[in-house]
């Protein structure tokens, strides 16, 4: 690998990262706007045209806020954990292909940062890393609310990681590869058609993994006052916030890649199709938040272990049987 | 893809499959049956599994040597011999536990399931021709036993024993695993046959990495055998564990570790066996001397039997050191004999023991013989056999071990062994003396006999006598078993 290639990868990484940051920022705007209109309000209006500059204003405000480290906290872990969460969430996008190869200046460039054979495993590995960040944040704050939030989120996220991991086995069986590009290319028919149950389970677990409604128990603002990040302020708080939204984006990208045919689609260029799919899913995330109340904790665990887990195993069985019977 | 059903060959692990199916059936039955009393019948599922497994493994006897799972496990007479031994031990333990579990209101499902899994792990250990497989078998067996040792949750000693066994066991597993890693590093394989070939080919015998690996491996096995200086856990764990489990551990774990040790040292890597003889020689002397001398001072019957089992490991090591056809045959024969006589002794302990760890002191045995002559006589037979008094099987076992040692020129070792058995006579006889010749201080509540326990006693008694009086059949079987090593 020459310097040119490394340079290209570096440029790609920085561009993608900047895009992600922008998406995260405007996702908060989108969420507030959509939520507002769904609740017959207007959402942000003041800063810029229809509040378009609101995210930037928020960012600047948070940057200037006082940075508090709780006196009884375990300082090193306390500072480290928001970085773990953000790092894991942003780095996960590296293996997702945004489009087919394109040609710039006579050079073929693949539209993903890293094209590795075990891409899907890599995303799962990173998304389970963020469990550490959240749990350590809750523990190191040395506050009771934070501890409870951290514990809850640890239990919740590992409980839902299980069916999530199992739900994509069907896709892997059909595609015969863990490489995202291969998976996209094998989807002449979107896998949502062949794997509807796997898709549903994956989506539900995805909500739980992002700590989003209706699975937002770790932060449950009205009982745990923000749960694991109750003691965080300023940019450290912002990092958790951004990580959650970045996680949503990664997840939507993953759903699009695994189940919705990735960049593939007629007429429009691949990147556009990919973005369309991702934003449709992100809209869905917000829509669900506006619609459903929060689960109770025992219901949440029960649903994960007693419904999703057996159903995802059943899905594998049915897929396997189907493939044996019909080739 | 070269994976075909043929290369896997389920028949090779037939006994294990039956055991696992029985264990899983037991678990399912445990959650289906709601009634506490009905659940006591679960033991019969376990016994049925053991019997089925016995039938399957008996059918494997005398067949051609067959490797399965890409050479990870093997069926030969050696492995079948040990399979049968473990199954007998497991079966007798289940029967012994029946009343024990019932009386103490222990949850029967897990108890019997774990016993079956532990047996399965032992069987795997005897069968494996790959170090990884040996480790897996050892872990299956150990993890089950960690739980079983602390099964009586309310008992302080039990919990202490469980924790001790777990910590030291995990530690020793680490040793074993590290040894395996170093051996792999030195020879490039975990298959015993390939390791042997690599050593012979490249002349690695003096290689430091190999030496270190072998030493660590021996340490790992030493822990399970309770070889001095790795015996520290044995007395506390044996005392704290439920008595039937103590019996099971003292024979099963020991035999499993010896099976693996023999497979490694005598079978696949004889060159290494010779190299390590001095270490084993010293270990043997230390183990039997320390076991016997400390047993003299014990007042608790389980602790005494724990030290006695350490001592017996020392005797068996003499056979390992002697090696050759006679030595290895003697080891196998001794393990068989020891299994039955020691389980018999533990059956008597279980019969006499009362709830909450009562009646486990030697003084509690006073007058037992006169109140229950049959029980006393049985205990006397087991004790005499353990001490090695003719014509019982224990004597024959020691006789073959010592004569093998003499034949191979280990005269000093033999003399120390004989002296040791003389010492041991004292504490074994003391039990019998206590039972028949001492009057109890207070009136003793009579022992309640449970049919399953009586069956165990009869079986153990029968074989202890028969193997002593007519040893030739069993010796023949043992000799057949080690033919592949010659």
């Amino acid at each position, binding site marked *: 690998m020459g310097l040119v290639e*490394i340079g290209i990868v570096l440029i790609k990484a920085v561009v993608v990262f900047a895009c992600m940051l922008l998406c995260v920022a405007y996702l908060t705007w989108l969420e507030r706007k959509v939520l507002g209109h769904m609740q017959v309000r207007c959402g942000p209006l003041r800063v810029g045209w229809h509040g378009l500059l609101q995210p930037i204003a928020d960012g600047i405000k948070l940057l200037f*806020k*006082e940075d508090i480290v*709780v006196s009884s906290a375990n300082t090193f872990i306390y500072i480290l954990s928001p970085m773990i969460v953000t790092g894991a969430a942003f780095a996960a996008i590296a293996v997702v292909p945004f489009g087919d190869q394109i040609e710039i200046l006579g050079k073929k460039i693949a539209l993903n940062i890293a*094209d590795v054979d075990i891409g899907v495993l890599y995303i799962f590995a990173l998304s389970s890393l963020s469990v550490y960040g959240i749990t350590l944040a809750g523990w190191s704050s040395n506050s*009771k609310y934070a501890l409870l939030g951290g514990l809850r989120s640890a239990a919740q996220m590992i409980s839902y990681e299980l069916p999530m991991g199992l739900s994509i086995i069907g896709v892997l069986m059909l595609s015969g590869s863990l490489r995202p590009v291969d998976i996209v290319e094998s989807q002449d028919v979107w896998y949502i058609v062949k794997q509807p149950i796997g898709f549903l389970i994956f989506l539900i677990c995805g909500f739980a993994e992002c700590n989003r409604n209706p699975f937002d128990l770790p932060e449950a603002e009205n009982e745990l006052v923000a749960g694991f990040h109750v003691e965080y302020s300023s940019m450290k708080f912002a990092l958790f916030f951004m990580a959650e939204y970045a996680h949503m984006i990664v997840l939507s990208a993953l759903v699009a890649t695994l189940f919705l045919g990735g960049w593939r689609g007629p007429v429009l260029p691949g990147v556009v199709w990919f973005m369309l799919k991702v934003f449709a899913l992100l809209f869905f995330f917000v829509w669900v938040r506006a619609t459903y109340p929060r689960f109770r904790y025992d219901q949440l665990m029960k649903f994960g272990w007693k419904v999703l887990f057996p159903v995802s195993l059943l899905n*594998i*069985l049915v897929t396997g049987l189907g493939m044996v019977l019909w080739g | *893809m070269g994976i075909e059903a043929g290369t896997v060959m389920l028949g090779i692990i037939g006994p294990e499959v039956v055991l696992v199916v029985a264990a899983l059936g037991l678990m399912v039955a445990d959650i289906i049956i709601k009634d506490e009393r009905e659940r006591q019948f679960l033991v019969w599922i376990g016994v049925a599994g053991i019997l089925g497994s016995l039938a399957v493994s008996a059918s494997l006897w005398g067949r051609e040597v067959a490797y399965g799972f890409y050479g990870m496990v093997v069926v030969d007479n050696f492995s079948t011999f040990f399979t049968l031994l473990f199954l007998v031990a497991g079966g007798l333990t289940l029967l012994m536990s029946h009343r024990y579990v019932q009386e103490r209101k222990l949850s029967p499902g897990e108890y019997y399931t774990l016993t079956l899994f532990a047996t399965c792990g032992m069987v795997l250990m005897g069968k494996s021709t790959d170090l990884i497989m040996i480790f897996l078998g050892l872990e299956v067996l150990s993890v089950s036993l960690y739980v079983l040792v602390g099964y009586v949750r309310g008992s302080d000693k039990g919990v202490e024993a469980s924790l001790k066994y777990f910590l030291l066991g995990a530690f020793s597993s680490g040793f074993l695993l590290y040894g395996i890693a170093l051996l792999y590093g030195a020879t490039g394989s975990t298959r015993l046959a390939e390791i042997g070939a690599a050593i012979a080919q490249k002349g690695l015998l003096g290689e430091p990495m190999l030496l270190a690996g072998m030493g660590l491996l021996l340490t790992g096995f030493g822990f399970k055998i309770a070889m001095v200086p790795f015996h520290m856990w044995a007395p506390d764990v044996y005392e704290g564990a439920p008595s039937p489990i103590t019996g099971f551990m003292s024979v099963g774990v020991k035999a499993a570790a010896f099976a693996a040790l023999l497979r490694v040292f005598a079978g696949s890597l004889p060159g290494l066996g010779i190299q390590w003889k001095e270490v084993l020689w010293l270990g043997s002397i230390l183990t039997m001397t320390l076991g016997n001398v400390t047993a003299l001072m014990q007042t608790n019957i389980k602790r005494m039997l724990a030290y006695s089992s350490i001592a017996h490991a020392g005797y068996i090591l003499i056979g390992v050191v002697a090696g050759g056809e006679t030595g290895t045959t003697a080891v196998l024969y001794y393990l068989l004999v020891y299994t039955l006589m020691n389980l018999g002794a533990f059956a008597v302990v279980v019969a006499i023991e009362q709830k909450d760890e009562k009646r486990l002191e030697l003084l509690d045995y006073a007058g037992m013989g006169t109140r229950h002559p049959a029980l006393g006589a049985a205990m006397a037979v087991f004790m005499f056999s353990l001490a090695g008094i003719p014509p019982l099987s224990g004597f024959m076992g020691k006789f073959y071990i010592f004569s093998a040692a003499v034949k191979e020129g280990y005269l000093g070792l033999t003399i120390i062994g004989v002296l040791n058995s003389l010492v041991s006579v004292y504490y074994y006889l003391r039990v019998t003396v206590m039972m028949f010749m001492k009057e109890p201080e207070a009136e003793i509540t009579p022992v309640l006999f449970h049919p399953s326990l009586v069956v165990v006693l009869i079986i153990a008694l029968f074989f202890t006598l028969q193997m002593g009086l007519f040893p030739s059949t069993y010796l023949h079987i043992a000799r057949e078993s080690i033919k592949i090593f010659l």
Partner: protein
Amino acid sequence: MGIAGYTGILIMVAVAAAFGGVVVLLSRLIGKRQESREKLMPYECGIDPTGNARRRFSIKFYITAMLFIIFDIEAVFLYPWAVVYRSLKIFGFIEMVVFVGILLIGFLYVWKKGALEWGSKSI
């Protein structure tokens, strides 16, 4: 792509980690700070916190974590199997039914013993 593909991952992780570090450092430098004892206390509904948050918590969390380990290993075994499933054919299917079946019995056992209950029925 082989090992070369991982350069991208390395760069991406580095960029993401650098971003986190820089942002936190920046807010530390820019943000004004006026610390007081009350401000640095852990939040507890506005009163002085009682005791310490380093305390024992429900055993259920441990059980959940242990169950996760067991079944996650199962999932890990399923991944390579799934990728080569096409060439394993019916043999692979049966093998996996046996493997998953054994774990499923364990799952059933755990369920019936009440390890998955979080409400009043919990053990």
